[in-house]
């Protein structure tokens, strides 16, 4: 299981990215928290499935312009 934070900007907010992710990749998606506003939104998403399939699903989301980050925030500190 992996938890990520998706950040959507502008037009991407209106796209059913998570639905499509579940259809096109063999992953189970589960929204844990979200904040969706007019021009920006974030979603904490849990994904279950094969690691490679999760990688592919997230890479696909990135290619659409959705930003994918670790759900906990950056762990590498200065």
């Amino acid at each position: 299981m992996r938890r990520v934070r998706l950040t959507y900007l502008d037009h991407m907010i209106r796209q059913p990215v998570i639905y499509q992710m579940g259809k096109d990749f063999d992953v189970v998606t589960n929204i844990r928290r979200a904040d969706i506003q007019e021009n920006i939104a974030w979603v904490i998403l849990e994904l279950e499935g094969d690691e490679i399939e999760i990688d592919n699903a997230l890479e696909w989301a990135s290619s659409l312009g959705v930003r994918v980050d670790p759900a906990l925030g950056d762990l590498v500190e200065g």
Partner: protein
Amino acid sequence: MANTISLRCRECSRDYPIEPLNVCEFCFGPLEVVYDYDAINASTSRDKIASGPRSMWRYADFLPADYNPVTDINAGFTPLIRSRNLAEELGLKELYIKNDSVNPSYSFKDRVVSVASAKALEFGFDTIACASTGNLAGAVSAHAARSGMKAYVFIPSDLEAGKVLTAAIYGATIVSVDGSYDVVNRLCSELADKYRWAFVNINVRPFYADGSKTLGYEVAEQLGWQAPVHAVAPAASGAMFTKIWKGLNEFADAGLIDTPVNTHMHLAQAEGCSPIASAYLDDRFIIKPVKPDSVAKSLAIGNPADGYYALKTIEASGGSAVVVEENEVSEGVKLLARTEGIFTEGAGGVAISALKKLTQSGTIKPNDQTVVYITGNGLKTVELVQDVVHPLLIEPTVDAFEAAVDTKVS
């Protein structure tokens, strides 16, 4: 015993026991330590604090771990210096510099790791770990050396080994991970799940973060038991910034300083990595993560875990956020060194340049009592200001010296 009751989710308020946990299992919100303020307020006093150790542990009543001499390397209680020259240059009458660059491992990270390592021993961990490119690595490694714990420090492979020399010297195992920051982030998250280690900013993060509250307590005590009108601090994850504010408010609630706290909290970031300050300037509470590209390396967190809470702190305190240009980072470092004899790293340069902007814009007025937080030491990042070195090259004669410096002793 520490005056703690539970951990609580900052979003849904669910309670959890005092254990090495950092995330709410229901809503995935971050957990925060809940204190028994009745017990704290009954046991603390100005006299008790003033007669305590000359370290951050004089505030042990307010901390989530018991004092443990085994881990203590004397972090905190760093100087609060009344500025003369910088204040004059900026047109301020009462400016103070909180010089946290003189902590044992030369940054404020000693405060958070001091608490994290004491708590780690309480929890029975024998290993402490972190992912860091600099200051945190040094603090973790130094505390591990003192306490006898094993230490692992994870770094991206593109980081020069010399950058973590100040951690390696204490004996930590430095693990260079083949991949980007993102890869290191992911690996550390997996390792934290797999190994029973105290990962300071993962499973013991609620305790770790509260070490920064002492930056609020100390300034209040050193100002003669009062909160400043303005506080200017750099931000990476945003945690330190929120905890300074929390510390000031806890002191007020305990009757140690006046209430309400009227400090305006000003957050400083550099242009190349300013996700929190940019959100403030765009008037939004959603952080847009960025890929860091800044010379202020210790602030290079593109996806700040506490960004939202830092924005709430700005709002609650009537503060602001400032973005300084990349060239202003080293200018700030040089300005502080030239005027006050304090050599800070890029984060300090960001704070000083932000302070300058805040005075120029009139946000901070000449008579406002102001504290600027200097959180790390310049000796760790000398490459940032390498251009200051212009030695006079002379023949070994008095004449040559006098000709070079254009002076004559009459």
